[in-house]
Protein backbone atom coordinates (compact mmCIF):
# COMPACT_ATOMS: atom_id res chain seq x y z
CA UNK A 1 0.00 0.00 0.00
CA UNK A 2 1.25 3.45 -0.83
CA UNK A 3 1.03 5.79 2.06
CA UNK A 4 1.19 9.40 1.09
CA UNK A 5 2.76 11.75 3.53
CA UNK A 6 1.41 15.23 4.04
CA UNK A 7 3.18 17.75 1.92
CA UNK A 8 3.28 21.40 2.71
CA UNK A 9 1.83 23.56 -0.06
CA UNK A 10 4.62 25.65 -1.53
CA UNK A 11 3.90 29.35 -1.19
CA UNK A 12 4.08 29.70 -4.96
CA UNK A 13 0.93 27.62 -5.22
CA UNK A 14 -1.16 29.61 -2.77
CA UNK A 15 -3.63 31.80 -4.58
CA UNK A 16 -3.30 35.46 -3.88
CA UNK A 17 -6.48 36.42 -1.97
CA UNK A 18 -7.02 39.37 -4.26
CA UNK A 19 -6.97 37.13 -7.32
CA UNK A 20 -9.27 34.69 -5.60
CA UNK A 21 -11.92 37.24 -4.72
CA UNK A 22 -11.66 38.96 -8.11
CA UNK A 23 -12.23 35.62 -9.78
CA UNK A 24 -15.18 35.00 -7.56
CA UNK A 25 -16.72 38.38 -8.36
CA UNK A 26 -16.22 37.68 -12.04
CA UNK A 27 -17.89 34.28 -11.71
CA UNK A 28 -20.78 35.80 -9.81
CA UNK A 29 -21.35 38.54 -12.34
CA UNK A 30 -21.23 35.96 -15.12
CA UNK A 31 -23.79 33.90 -13.27
CA UNK A 32 -25.98 36.91 -12.61
CA UNK A 33 -25.74 37.87 -16.27
CA UNK A 34 -26.77 34.44 -17.46
CA UNK A 35 -29.62 34.36 -14.96
CA UNK A 36 -30.90 37.58 -16.46
CA UNK A 37 -30.58 36.22 -19.94
CA UNK A 38 -32.75 33.21 -19.21
CA UNK A 39 -35.35 35.28 -17.43
CA UNK A 40 -34.81 35.26 -13.68
CA UNK A 41 -34.98 38.99 -13.08
CA UNK A 42 -35.57 38.52 -9.35
CA UNK A 43 -32.11 36.99 -8.98
CA UNK A 44 -30.43 40.36 -9.19
CA UNK A 45 -31.20 44.02 -9.15
CA UNK A 46 -32.76 43.94 -12.57
CA UNK A 47 -35.48 46.47 -11.92
CA UNK A 48 -33.07 49.32 -11.53
CA UNK A 49 -33.19 51.79 -8.69
CA UNK A 50 -36.51 53.52 -8.47
CA UNK A 51 -35.57 55.76 -5.59
CA UNK A 52 -32.37 57.59 -4.92
CA UNK A 53 -31.54 60.01 -2.17
CA UNK A 54 -34.70 59.34 -0.21
CA UNK A 55 -34.50 60.88 3.24
CA UNK A 56 -33.36 58.40 5.83
CA UNK A 57 -35.84 58.89 8.64
CA UNK A 58 -34.60 59.63 12.13
CA UNK A 59 -35.95 56.25 13.18
CA UNK A 60 -33.66 54.40 10.78
CA UNK A 61 -31.09 52.43 12.78
CA UNK A 62 -27.59 53.85 12.51
CA UNK A 63 -24.35 51.90 12.49
CA UNK A 64 -25.62 48.57 11.14
CA UNK A 65 -23.96 46.57 8.43
CA UNK A 66 -26.63 46.12 5.78
CA UNK A 67 -27.13 42.54 4.55
CA UNK A 68 -26.25 42.14 0.86
CA UNK A 69 -29.39 42.35 -1.27
CA UNK A 70 -28.89 38.88 -2.69
CA UNK A 71 -29.69 36.78 0.40
CA UNK A 72 -32.52 39.16 1.26
CA UNK A 73 -34.07 38.47 -2.14
CA UNK A 74 -33.48 34.72 -2.14
CA UNK A 75 -34.18 33.54 1.38
CA UNK A 76 -37.87 34.14 1.98
CA UNK A 77 -40.73 32.67 3.87
CA UNK A 78 -43.88 33.08 1.81
CA UNK A 79 -46.24 30.44 3.12
CA UNK A 80 -49.00 31.19 0.60
CA UNK A 81 -46.67 29.80 -2.06
CA UNK A 82 -44.39 27.32 -0.35
CA UNK A 83 -42.80 26.30 2.93
CA UNK A 84 -39.46 26.10 1.19
CA UNK A 85 -37.52 29.36 1.48
CA UNK A 86 -35.44 28.74 -1.63
CA UNK A 87 -38.53 28.31 -3.84
CA UNK A 88 -40.45 31.42 -2.77
CA UNK A 89 -38.60 33.80 -5.09
CA UNK A 90 -39.49 31.79 -8.18
CA UNK A 91 -43.10 30.98 -7.27
CA UNK A 92 -44.03 34.45 -6.07
CA UNK A 93 -43.42 35.91 -9.54
CA UNK A 94 -46.88 34.63 -10.50
CA UNK A 95 -48.64 37.19 -8.31
CA UNK A 96 -49.79 40.29 -10.24
CA UNK A 97 -49.11 43.33 -8.06
CA UNK A 98 -50.13 46.14 -10.34
CA UNK A 99 -52.83 47.46 -10.19
CA UNK A 100 -53.30 47.15 -6.46
CA UNK A 101 -55.33 48.98 -3.90
CA UNK A 102 -55.33 49.20 -0.15
CA UNK A 103 -58.39 50.03 1.88
CA UNK A 104 -58.45 51.27 5.44
CA UNK A 105 -61.80 50.78 7.14
CA UNK A 106 -63.50 49.62 10.34
CA UNK A 107 -63.60 51.89 13.38
CA UNK A 108 -62.70 55.01 11.44
CA UNK A 109 -64.43 58.25 10.67
CA UNK A 110 -63.36 58.30 7.05
CA UNK A 111 -62.60 55.01 5.34
CA UNK A 112 -59.96 55.50 2.66
CA UNK A 113 -58.65 53.59 -0.32
CA UNK A 114 -55.19 54.07 -1.74
CA UNK A 115 -54.05 53.13 -5.19
CA UNK A 116 -50.54 51.71 -5.29
CA UNK A 117 -49.26 54.74 -7.20
CA UNK A 118 -50.36 57.06 -4.35
CA UNK A 119 -48.19 55.08 -1.98
CA UNK A 120 -45.19 54.76 -4.31
CA UNK A 121 -45.18 58.54 -4.67
CA UNK A 122 -46.14 59.36 -1.09
CA UNK A 123 -44.52 62.55 0.21
CA UNK A 124 -43.50 60.87 3.47
CA UNK A 125 -41.64 58.01 1.74
CA UNK A 126 -38.31 57.34 3.44
CA UNK A 127 -35.61 54.79 3.93
CA UNK A 128 -35.48 52.84 7.18
CA UNK A 129 -32.59 50.52 7.92
CA UNK A 130 -33.85 47.95 10.40
CA UNK A 131 -32.79 44.66 11.90
CA UNK A 132 -35.16 41.92 10.77
CA UNK A 133 -35.37 38.92 13.11
CA UNK A 134 -37.25 35.78 12.09
CA UNK A 135 -38.87 33.54 14.70
CA UNK A 136 -36.72 30.77 13.16
CA UNK A 137 -33.60 32.39 14.69
CA UNK A 138 -32.05 33.99 11.63
CA UNK A 139 -31.81 37.69 10.94
CA UNK A 140 -30.72 40.31 8.47
CA UNK A 141 -30.41 44.07 8.20
CA UNK A 142 -32.64 45.47 5.50
CA UNK A 143 -32.83 49.00 4.06
CA UNK A 144 -36.60 49.25 3.69
CA UNK A 145 -38.43 52.01 1.89
CA UNK A 146 -41.79 52.89 3.31
CA UNK A 147 -44.27 55.23 4.90
CA UNK A 148 -44.83 55.54 8.64
CA UNK A 149 -48.06 53.61 9.09
CA UNK A 150 -49.41 56.19 11.49
CA UNK A 151 -49.65 58.71 8.61
CA UNK A 152 -51.99 56.44 6.69
CA UNK A 153 -54.05 55.47 9.73
CA UNK A 154 -54.50 59.06 10.82
CA UNK A 155 -55.77 60.00 7.38
CA UNK A 156 -58.67 57.65 8.04
CA UNK A 157 -59.37 59.34 11.40
CA UNK A 158 -59.61 56.43 13.86
CA UNK A 159 -62.57 56.49 16.24
CA UNK A 160 -61.93 56.34 19.98
CA UNK A 161 -63.42 52.86 19.92
CA UNK A 162 -60.53 51.60 17.74
CA UNK A 163 -58.09 49.57 19.85
CA UNK A 164 -56.55 47.09 17.41
CA UNK A 165 -55.50 46.99 13.79
CA UNK A 166 -56.06 44.00 11.55
CA UNK A 167 -54.04 43.47 8.36
CA UNK A 168 -55.32 41.14 5.67
CA UNK A 169 -53.16 39.77 2.87
CA UNK A 170 -54.25 39.03 -0.65
CA UNK A 171 -56.38 35.92 -1.26
CA UNK A 172 -55.58 34.41 -4.64
CA UNK A 173 -56.09 30.65 -4.49
CA UNK A 174 -55.83 30.58 -8.27
CA UNK A 175 -52.20 31.67 -7.97
CA UNK A 176 -51.09 30.68 -4.48
CA UNK A 177 -50.77 26.89 -4.16
CA UNK A 178 -51.04 26.66 -0.38
CA UNK A 179 -54.23 28.72 -0.45
CA UNK A 180 -55.64 26.57 -3.22
CA UNK A 181 -54.94 23.37 -1.28
CA UNK A 182 -55.83 24.87 2.13
CA UNK A 183 -52.42 23.77 3.34
CA UNK A 184 -51.70 24.10 7.03
CA UNK A 185 -52.77 27.67 7.77
CA UNK A 186 -56.15 29.41 7.56
CA UNK A 187 -56.11 31.72 4.55
CA UNK A 188 -55.91 34.57 3.86
CA UNK A 189 -52.95 35.45 6.08
CA UNK A 190 -54.04 37.89 8.78
CA UNK A 191 -51.93 39.81 11.24
CA UNK A 192 -52.71 42.29 13.95
CA UNK A 193 -51.26 44.96 16.19
CA UNK A 194 -52.51 46.98 19.07
CA UNK A 195 -53.40 50.47 17.83
CA UNK A 196 -50.53 52.06 19.78
CA UNK A 197 -48.09 49.57 18.23
CA UNK A 198 -49.45 50.32 14.77
CA UNK A 199 -49.14 54.09 15.40
CA UNK A 200 -45.60 53.77 16.74
CA UNK A 201 -43.15 55.74 14.58
CA UNK A 202 -41.01 52.62 13.98
CA UNK A 203 -43.90 50.80 12.29
CA UNK A 204 -43.90 51.30 8.54
CA UNK A 205 -45.80 50.17 5.52
CA UNK A 206 -43.04 49.20 3.14
CA UNK A 207 -43.16 49.49 -0.65
CA UNK A 208 -39.48 48.90 -1.41
CA UNK A 209 -36.06 47.78 -0.31
CA UNK A 210 -32.50 48.41 -1.51
CA UNK A 211 -33.72 51.47 -3.49
CA UNK A 212 -36.08 49.35 -5.59
CA UNK A 213 -39.75 48.43 -5.43
CA UNK A 214 -40.28 45.36 -3.27
CA UNK A 215 -39.49 42.10 -5.03
CA UNK A 216 -42.59 39.91 -5.07
CA UNK A 217 -41.06 37.32 -2.76
CA UNK A 218 -40.44 40.05 -0.20
CA UNK A 219 -44.11 41.01 -0.08
CA UNK A 220 -44.78 43.27 -3.04
CA UNK A 221 -46.42 45.60 -3.44
CA UNK A 222 -47.09 46.45 0.22
CA UNK A 223 -45.93 44.86 3.41
CA UNK A 224 -45.83 45.71 7.05
CA UNK A 225 -42.49 46.11 8.83
CA UNK A 226 -42.49 46.05 12.63
CA UNK A 227 -38.81 45.77 13.51
CA UNK A 228 -39.11 44.81 17.18
CA UNK A 229 -41.34 41.81 16.44
CA UNK A 230 -40.62 38.45 14.82
CA UNK A 231 -40.81 38.53 11.04
CA UNK A 232 -44.10 36.65 10.72
CA UNK A 233 -45.87 39.75 12.09
CA UNK A 234 -44.64 41.74 9.09
CA UNK A 235 -47.38 40.52 6.77
CA UNK A 236 -46.86 40.59 3.00
CA UNK A 237 -49.06 41.69 0.09
CA UNK A 238 -51.61 43.59 2.20
CA UNK A 239 -54.98 44.44 0.65
CA UNK A 240 -56.88 45.80 3.61
CA UNK A 241 -56.43 47.30 7.03
CA UNK A 242 -59.28 47.31 9.53
CA UNK A 243 -59.38 49.13 12.81
CA UNK A 244 -61.14 47.02 15.41
CA UNK A 245 -62.51 47.18 18.92
CA UNK A 246 -61.10 43.78 19.83
CA UNK A 247 -57.93 41.85 19.09
CA UNK A 248 -58.14 40.08 15.72
CA UNK A 249 -57.41 36.41 15.18
CA UNK A 250 -53.97 36.20 13.60
CA UNK A 251 -52.72 33.42 11.35
CA UNK A 252 -49.77 31.78 13.15
CA UNK A 253 -51.26 32.46 16.56
CA UNK A 254 -54.43 30.73 15.45
CA UNK A 255 -52.45 27.78 14.09
CA UNK A 256 -50.34 27.18 17.20
CA UNK A 257 -51.27 29.53 20.05
CA UNK A 258 -48.65 28.11 22.41
CA UNK A 259 -45.86 28.65 19.87
CA UNK A 260 -46.64 31.95 18.18
CA UNK A 261 -48.06 34.68 20.38
CA UNK A 262 -50.15 37.66 19.33
CA UNK A 263 -47.41 40.04 20.49
CA UNK A 264 -44.43 38.07 19.12
CA UNK A 265 -41.98 40.64 20.44
CA UNK A 266 -38.39 39.57 19.91
CA UNK A 267 -37.26 38.35 23.31
CA UNK A 268 -34.22 36.15 23.97
CA UNK A 269 -35.53 35.28 27.42
CA UNK A 270 -38.69 33.64 26.12
CA UNK A 271 -37.79 30.57 24.06
CA UNK A 272 -40.11 29.15 21.46
CA UNK A 273 -41.43 25.89 22.98
CA UNK A 274 -39.21 23.89 20.63
CA UNK A 275 -36.15 26.07 20.16
CA UNK A 276 -34.10 28.75 21.83
CA UNK A 277 -34.43 32.42 20.87
CA UNK A 278 -31.24 33.41 22.66
CA UNK A 279 -29.16 33.80 19.51
CA UNK A 280 -29.57 34.27 15.78
CA UNK A 281 -27.65 33.54 12.60
CA UNK A 282 -27.07 36.79 10.74
CA UNK A 283 -27.40 36.08 7.02
CA UNK A 284 -24.31 36.98 5.08
CA UNK A 285 -22.00 36.29 8.02
CA UNK A 286 -19.32 33.72 7.30
CA UNK A 287 -18.48 30.24 8.54
CA UNK A 288 -16.98 29.95 12.02
CA UNK A 289 -18.53 33.31 12.92
CA UNK A 290 -20.45 33.15 16.17
CA UNK A 291 -24.19 33.74 16.13
CA UNK A 292 -25.45 37.11 17.25
CA UNK A 293 -26.90 37.33 20.72
CA UNK A 294 -30.54 38.29 20.27
CA UNK A 295 -31.61 41.50 21.97
CA UNK A 296 -34.86 42.22 23.78
CA UNK A 297 -37.25 43.95 21.33
CA UNK A 298 -34.60 43.24 18.68
CA UNK A 299 -32.55 46.14 20.03
CA UNK A 300 -35.42 48.65 19.86
CA UNK A 301 -36.18 48.56 23.58
CA UNK A 302 -35.40 52.22 24.08
CA UNK A 303 -38.16 53.18 21.66
CA UNK A 304 -40.79 50.53 22.39
CA UNK A 305 -40.36 49.11 25.91
CA UNK A 306 -42.79 51.70 27.29
CA UNK A 307 -45.58 50.13 25.21
CA UNK A 308 -45.38 47.04 27.39
CA UNK A 309 -44.83 48.59 30.80
CA UNK A 310 -46.17 46.40 33.57
CA UNK A 311 -46.89 43.49 31.25
CA UNK A 312 -45.53 40.01 31.91
CA UNK A 313 -43.71 39.37 28.63
CA UNK A 314 -43.62 35.63 29.34
CA UNK A 315 -47.38 35.54 29.45
CA UNK A 316 -47.97 38.00 26.64
CA UNK A 317 -45.32 36.51 24.37
Amino acid at each position, binding site marked *: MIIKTKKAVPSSEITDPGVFSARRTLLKSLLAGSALAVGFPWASGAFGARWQDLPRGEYSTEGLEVTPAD*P*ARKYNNYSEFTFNKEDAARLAQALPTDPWSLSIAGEVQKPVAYALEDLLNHPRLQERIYRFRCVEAWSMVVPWIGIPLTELLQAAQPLSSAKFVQFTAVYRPDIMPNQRNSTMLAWPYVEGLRLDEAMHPLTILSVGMYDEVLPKQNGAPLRLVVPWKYGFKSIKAIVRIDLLKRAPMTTWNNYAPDEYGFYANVNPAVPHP*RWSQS*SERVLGSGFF*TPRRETELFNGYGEQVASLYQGMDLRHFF
Partner: protein
Amino acid sequence: MTLNSNKIWWSIFATGLLPLLVLAIEIAADSLGANPIEAIHIRLGDWALRFLCLTLAVTPLQTVTKWRGMADYRQLLGIYCWFYASLHLFAYLAVDQAWEWSLIGLDLLESRYMWFGLLAYMIIFLLGLTTSKAAKKILGKRWKKLHRWIYFASFSAVMHYFWQLKGNLAEPAFYLVVVAFLLAFRLLACFKNRQVSLLMIPTGKRHSV
Protein backbone atom coordinates in the same frame (compact mmCIF):
# COMPACT_ATOMS: atom_id res chain seq x y z
CA MET B 1 -15.21 -12.82 1.58
CA THR B 2 -15.41 -13.46 -2.14
CA LEU B 3 -14.07 -11.02 -4.66
CA ASN B 4 -17.61 -10.16 -5.70
CA SER B 5 -18.80 -9.12 -2.26
CA ASN B 6 -15.55 -7.26 -1.80
CA LYS B 7 -16.37 -5.23 -4.87
CA ILE B 8 -19.80 -4.44 -3.49
CA TRP B 9 -18.26 -3.34 -0.21
CA TRP B 10 -15.84 -1.00 -1.95
CA SER B 11 -18.51 0.51 -4.15
CA ILE B 12 -20.68 1.25 -1.10
CA PHE B 13 -17.61 2.72 0.55
CA ALA B 14 -16.92 5.00 -2.41
CA THR B 15 -20.57 6.01 -2.86
CA GLY B 16 -20.80 6.92 0.80
CA LEU B 17 -18.13 9.56 0.36
CA LEU B 18 -19.89 11.20 -2.58
CA PRO B 19 -22.28 13.39 -0.53
CA LEU B 20 -19.32 14.82 1.35
CA LEU B 21 -17.47 15.47 -1.90
CA VAL B 22 -20.49 17.23 -3.42
CA LEU B 23 -20.88 19.34 -0.28
CA ALA B 24 -17.19 20.28 -0.36
CA ILE B 25 -17.50 21.36 -3.99
CA GLU B 26 -20.60 23.41 -3.22
CA ILE B 27 -18.89 25.11 -0.29
CA ALA B 28 -15.92 25.94 -2.50
CA ALA B 29 -18.21 27.24 -5.26
CA ASP B 30 -20.29 29.22 -2.77
CA SER B 31 -23.46 27.68 -4.17
CA LEU B 32 -25.26 26.70 -0.97
CA GLY B 33 -27.73 29.56 -1.10
CA ALA B 34 -28.38 32.50 1.19
CA ASN B 35 -27.89 30.60 4.44
CA PRO B 36 -25.00 28.23 3.70
CA ILE B 37 -24.51 27.23 7.33
CA GLU B 38 -28.09 26.04 7.58
CA ALA B 39 -27.65 24.28 4.24
CA ILE B 40 -24.62 22.39 5.60
CA HIS B 41 -26.61 21.34 8.68
CA ILE B 42 -29.45 20.08 6.51
CA ARG B 43 -27.19 18.22 4.08
CA LEU B 44 -25.20 16.43 6.77
CA GLY B 45 -28.27 15.69 8.89
CA ASP B 46 -30.17 14.38 5.88
CA TRP B 47 -27.33 12.03 4.95
CA ALA B 48 -26.98 10.76 8.51
CA LEU B 49 -30.70 9.98 8.49
CA ARG B 50 -30.54 8.40 5.04
CA PHE B 51 -27.70 6.10 6.05
CA LEU B 52 -29.63 5.25 9.20
CA CYS B 53 -32.61 4.20 7.09
CA LEU B 54 -30.35 2.24 4.72
CA THR B 55 -28.77 0.46 7.69
CA LEU B 56 -32.21 -0.47 8.94
CA ALA B 57 -33.23 -1.64 5.48
CA VAL B 58 -30.52 -4.29 5.19
CA THR B 59 -32.16 -6.92 7.37
CA PRO B 60 -35.59 -6.72 5.69
CA LEU B 61 -33.84 -6.86 2.35
CA GLN B 62 -31.96 -9.93 3.49
CA THR B 63 -35.18 -11.57 4.61
CA VAL B 64 -37.01 -10.82 1.38
CA THR B 65 -34.20 -11.75 -1.00
CA LYS B 66 -32.85 -14.60 1.15
CA TRP B 67 -29.43 -13.22 0.28
CA ARG B 68 -27.17 -13.97 3.22
CA GLY B 69 -23.98 -12.28 4.18
CA MET B 70 -25.02 -8.64 4.07
CA ALA B 71 -23.87 -7.92 7.62
CA ASP B 72 -20.65 -6.32 6.39
CA TYR B 73 -22.56 -3.86 4.24
CA ARG B 74 -24.87 -3.10 7.12
CA GLN B 75 -21.87 -2.33 9.27
CA LEU B 76 -20.43 -0.02 6.62
CA LEU B 77 -23.75 1.81 6.18
CA GLY B 78 -24.00 2.16 9.95
CA ILE B 79 -20.52 3.63 10.11
CA TYR B 80 -21.49 6.16 7.43
CA CYS B 81 -24.52 7.14 9.49
CA TRP B 82 -22.19 7.67 12.44
CA PHE B 83 -19.77 9.59 10.20
CA TYR B 84 -22.35 12.03 8.84
CA ALA B 85 -24.03 12.44 12.23
CA SER B 86 -20.61 13.31 13.71
CA LEU B 87 -19.97 15.85 10.95
CA HIS B 88 -23.47 17.27 11.52
CA LEU B 89 -22.67 17.79 15.20
CA PHE B 90 -19.23 19.16 14.43
CA ALA B 91 -20.69 21.66 11.93
CA TYR B 92 -23.10 22.84 14.61
CA LEU B 93 -20.38 23.29 17.22
CA ALA B 94 -17.62 24.72 15.03
CA VAL B 95 -19.10 26.25 11.88
CA ASP B 96 -22.34 27.60 13.35
CA GLN B 97 -21.65 28.26 17.03
CA ALA B 98 -17.88 28.82 16.66
CA TRP B 99 -17.34 27.03 19.99
CA GLU B 100 -19.16 29.76 21.93
CA TRP B 101 -19.97 27.52 24.85
CA SER B 102 -22.25 29.98 26.65
CA LEU B 103 -24.51 30.24 23.60
CA ILE B 104 -24.28 26.50 22.98
CA GLY B 105 -25.30 25.84 26.58
CA LEU B 106 -28.33 28.12 26.31
CA ASP B 107 -29.29 26.57 23.00
CA LEU B 108 -29.09 23.06 24.42
CA LEU B 109 -31.06 24.02 27.47
CA GLU B 110 -33.88 25.77 25.61
CA SER B 111 -34.15 23.91 22.32
CA ARG B 112 -36.11 20.75 22.80
CA TYR B 113 -35.47 19.58 19.27
CA MET B 114 -31.78 19.50 20.21
CA TRP B 115 -32.49 17.03 23.00
CA PHE B 116 -33.77 14.53 20.45
CA GLY B 117 -30.78 15.13 18.22
CA LEU B 118 -28.41 14.64 21.10
CA LEU B 119 -30.13 11.46 22.24
CA ALA B 120 -29.99 10.08 18.71
CA TYR B 121 -26.34 10.99 18.42
CA MET B 122 -25.39 9.44 21.76
CA ILE B 123 -26.94 6.15 20.70
CA ILE B 124 -25.35 6.26 17.24
CA PHE B 125 -22.01 7.11 18.81
CA LEU B 126 -22.26 4.14 21.17
CA LEU B 127 -23.19 1.83 18.31
CA GLY B 128 -20.29 3.16 16.26
CA LEU B 129 -17.99 2.56 19.19
CA THR B 130 -19.03 -1.08 19.44
CA THR B 131 -19.13 -1.84 15.74
CA SER B 132 -15.94 -3.91 15.60
CA LYS B 133 -15.90 -7.71 15.57
CA ALA B 134 -13.85 -7.60 18.78
CA ALA B 135 -16.52 -5.57 20.56
CA LYS B 136 -19.15 -7.95 19.23
CA LYS B 137 -17.25 -10.86 20.74
CA ILE B 138 -16.75 -9.19 24.10
CA LEU B 139 -20.37 -8.07 24.40
CA GLY B 140 -21.76 -11.42 23.27
CA LYS B 141 -25.53 -11.53 23.56
CA ARG B 142 -25.66 -8.01 24.90
CA TRP B 143 -24.36 -6.69 21.57
CA LYS B 144 -27.61 -7.44 19.78
CA LYS B 145 -29.62 -5.87 22.59
CA LEU B 146 -27.46 -2.78 22.51
CA HIS B 147 -27.74 -2.44 18.75
CA ARG B 148 -31.53 -2.65 18.90
CA TRP B 149 -31.31 0.87 20.31
CA ILE B 150 -31.00 1.95 16.70
CA TYR B 151 -34.82 2.18 16.69
CA PHE B 152 -34.76 4.77 19.45
CA ALA B 153 -32.06 6.59 17.56
CA SER B 154 -34.10 6.67 14.35
CA PHE B 155 -37.31 7.91 15.96
CA SER B 156 -35.33 10.41 17.96
CA ALA B 157 -33.58 11.64 14.81
CA VAL B 158 -36.93 12.05 13.03
CA MET B 159 -38.32 13.99 16.02
CA HIS B 160 -35.22 16.15 15.93
CA TYR B 161 -36.12 16.96 12.34
CA PHE B 162 -39.84 17.61 13.00
CA TRP B 163 -39.43 19.79 16.04
CA GLN B 164 -37.17 22.41 14.55
CA LEU B 165 -39.51 23.34 11.70
CA LYS B 166 -42.19 25.98 11.41
CA GLY B 167 -43.80 24.67 8.23
CA ASN B 168 -42.49 22.31 5.58
CA LEU B 169 -43.16 19.06 7.43
CA ALA B 170 -43.18 16.89 4.30
CA GLU B 171 -39.58 15.72 4.56
CA PRO B 172 -39.51 14.59 8.19
CA ALA B 173 -42.91 12.98 7.57
CA PHE B 174 -41.34 10.98 4.76
CA TYR B 175 -38.57 9.69 7.04
CA LEU B 176 -41.10 8.89 9.74
CA VAL B 177 -42.98 6.69 7.28
CA VAL B 178 -39.77 4.96 6.18
CA VAL B 179 -38.60 4.27 9.73
CA ALA B 180 -42.07 3.12 10.81
CA PHE B 181 -42.28 0.82 7.80
CA LEU B 182 -38.89 -0.76 8.49
CA LEU B 183 -39.76 -1.28 12.13
CA ALA B 184 -43.18 -2.70 11.25
CA PHE B 185 -41.50 -5.18 8.94
CA ARG B 186 -39.36 -6.46 11.79
CA LEU B 187 -42.23 -6.66 14.24
CA LEU B 188 -44.19 -8.64 11.70
CA ALA B 189 -41.27 -10.95 11.00
CA CYS B 190 -40.71 -11.44 14.71
CA PHE B 191 -44.39 -12.21 15.26
CA LYS B 192 -44.41 -14.66 12.37
CA ASN B 193 -41.26 -16.39 13.62
CA ARG B 194 -42.83 -16.83 17.00
CA GLN B 195 -45.91 -18.39 15.46
CA VAL B 196 -43.81 -20.71 13.37
CA SER B 197 -41.75 -21.72 16.35
CA LEU B 198 -44.92 -22.24 18.38
CA LEU B 199 -46.08 -24.66 15.70
CA MET B 200 -42.79 -26.49 15.92
CA ILE B 201 -43.08 -27.12 19.63
CA PRO B 202 -44.42 -30.64 20.11
CA THR B 203 -47.52 -30.41 22.24
CA GLY B 204 -48.04 -34.13 22.52
CA LYS B 205 -51.73 -33.68 21.76
CA ARG B 206 -51.73 -33.66 18.04
CA HIS B 207 -51.41 -37.39 17.59
CA SER B 208 -53.30 -38.46 20.63
CA VAL B 209 -56.71 -38.48 19.00
